């Protein structure tokens, strides 16, 4: 069991004229939920397609459960459940019929497929729509049909390409919960370009940008170091010049931005030096300077900021 579920070494994929994945290496341990985070065009789908034996790599080796994805495709394909981007389904089939068809393709016997289909229908709360035609289902239901298909043959590894794209907040929550529940029994690799999604579901994160891996760590480490070290935002009452002078004099503060809002209130955005969390200090300063304080929060990083931040730290190193 010590052997990793996925082992990618020096993977490169070149399409005619451009490099989609550049010399990427990573491993995914068994039982992890790993998020592949990156903007559109970062090479996420390409990596997932190579892992699922749909595309060959230009160079490098990829092993899933110890099997090479190019040499032992059948062994690999038996062990994975893959849901591609946009979740393509046969829209003319009924839900139960489709899942049974997929189960049979994946090598389940007639009796086993019947049992498994019933089980996954229940797991994905699809039982009440099992006789409906897939084309007539809502996006949320379709997404769950895709998930049910990915896990119908109890694969060791589930690969999901943008599993929550285009869902409304309620559907989003239920699909994320489902993924989390699945993570107890299966290894999951999912791709997304939404930062909060990774924080909500994944135990590990790989950050991908322009075909290269920028960071790879447990989610909590990245959260501490990168995601949550956003600027501190405070709303205070004082004159702009006083605030400007005061904050410029503090050694912990790197940048200051002051925007007047309603009345005398000023919205102050401060970034700390070396990712320092300024919020306790701001409270302290507000008390000592006798500035009324009505809000104190920290701004969340967008994916954009994370990339800027990581690339900057890389350059400094």
């Amino acid at each position, binding site marked *: 069991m010590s052997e990793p579920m996925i082992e990618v070494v020096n993977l490169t994929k070149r399409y005619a004229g451009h490099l989609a994945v550049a010399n990427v290496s990573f491993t995914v341990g068994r039982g992890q939920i790993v998020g592949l985070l990156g903007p559109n065009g970062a090479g996420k789908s390409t990596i997932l397609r190579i892992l699922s034996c749909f*595309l060959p790599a230009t160079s490098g080796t990829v092993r899933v459960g110890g099997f090479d994805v190019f040499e032992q495709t059948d062994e690999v*394909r038996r062990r994975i459940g893959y849901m591609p981007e946009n979740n393509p389904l046969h829209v*003319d089939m009924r839900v139960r019929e489709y899942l049974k068809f*997929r189960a*049979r393709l994946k090598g389940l016997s007639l009796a086993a497929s019947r049992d498994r289909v019933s089980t996954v229908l229940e797991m994905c709360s699809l039982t009440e729509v099992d006789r409906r035609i897939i084309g007539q289902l809502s996006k949320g239901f379709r997404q769950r049909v895709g998930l049910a298909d990915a896990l119908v043959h109890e694969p060791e590894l589930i690969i999901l390409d943008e599993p929550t794209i285009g869902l409304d907040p309620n559907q989003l929550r239920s699909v994320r919960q489902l993924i989390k529940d699945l993570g107890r029994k299966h290894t999951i690799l999912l791709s997304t370009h939404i930062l909060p999604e990774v924080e909500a579901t994944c135990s590990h994160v790989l950050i991908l940008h322009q075909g290269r891996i920028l960071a790879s760590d447990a989610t909590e480490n990245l959260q501490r170091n990168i995601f949550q070290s956003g600027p501190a935002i405070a709303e205070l009452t004082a004159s702009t010049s006083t605030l400007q002078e005061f904050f410029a004099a503090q050694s912990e503060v790197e940048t200051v931005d002051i925007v007047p809002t309603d009345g005398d209130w000023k919205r102050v955005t401060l970034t700390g030096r070396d990712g320092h969390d300024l919020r306790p200090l701001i409270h302290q300063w507000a008390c000592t300077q006798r500035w009324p304080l009505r809000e104190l929060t920290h701004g969340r990083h967008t994916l954009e900021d994370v990339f800027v931040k990581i690339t900057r730290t890389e350059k400094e190193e």
Partner: protein
Amino acid sequence: MRVYLTLLRRELASHFVSLTGYVIISVVLLLLGFSILDMLPKLNGDATDTPITRIFYATVYFWMLMLLTTPIMTMRTFAQEKFTGTFETLMTTPVSDLEVVLAKFTGALIFFMVTWLPLGGYMMLLHQYTNQAATAFDYRTLLCTYLGIGLLGSVYVALGCFASALTRSQLIAAAVSYGMGITIFLLSLRSLVPIPMAGWQAKVFTYISLTEHLEDFSRGIIDTSNLVFYLSLTGMFLFLTLKVVESRRWK
């Protein structure tokens, strides 16, 4: 084998549980009906010892059916799956490329043969109402004609699958198979028009002529050279289809 049968069932369902399927069936019915109307006056004339199937084969509708319907039947096979993305979900399950190609081919061929069933009904009807029917109608000739239709059909269906595997667009798939299908058909006519050629040219063009080979079947003759001709053409197109499907792994 299990995978093949599962896929075949799915293919048959996609042909029969679809609007296009029934549009094709009605078009074939209409054209077959016209061909019977065309045949009736011929049978009303002097007594003839030509088999009915041979007379049917001589009507223009036979080739119209063969050339016009097969590209529509086969255009979806690969192109649609590639377009909607289900090709990706299919190829990431443990299925072999050969199973996929064969299932799609046989699915389309079975549908093709089903559309020809009314022909048998018409022949039976004619048999009922002709005098001394035994001479003009022999069920063995009919079966033999069906064999010929099946063999020629498999060439065209395999060609259509090949065209469909080349592209993501059903329209392009249909256009390519129309182009190739009609070209092969016109090449067959080369042995007859513009002027019958003598010598080796005539021989070559007769050998590669689809029409020449099929005529034997409609007379009730099964010649192994005809069998080999159609089967090898089918085999060639299926092989090409398989290579196109495999080619995603070379890119």
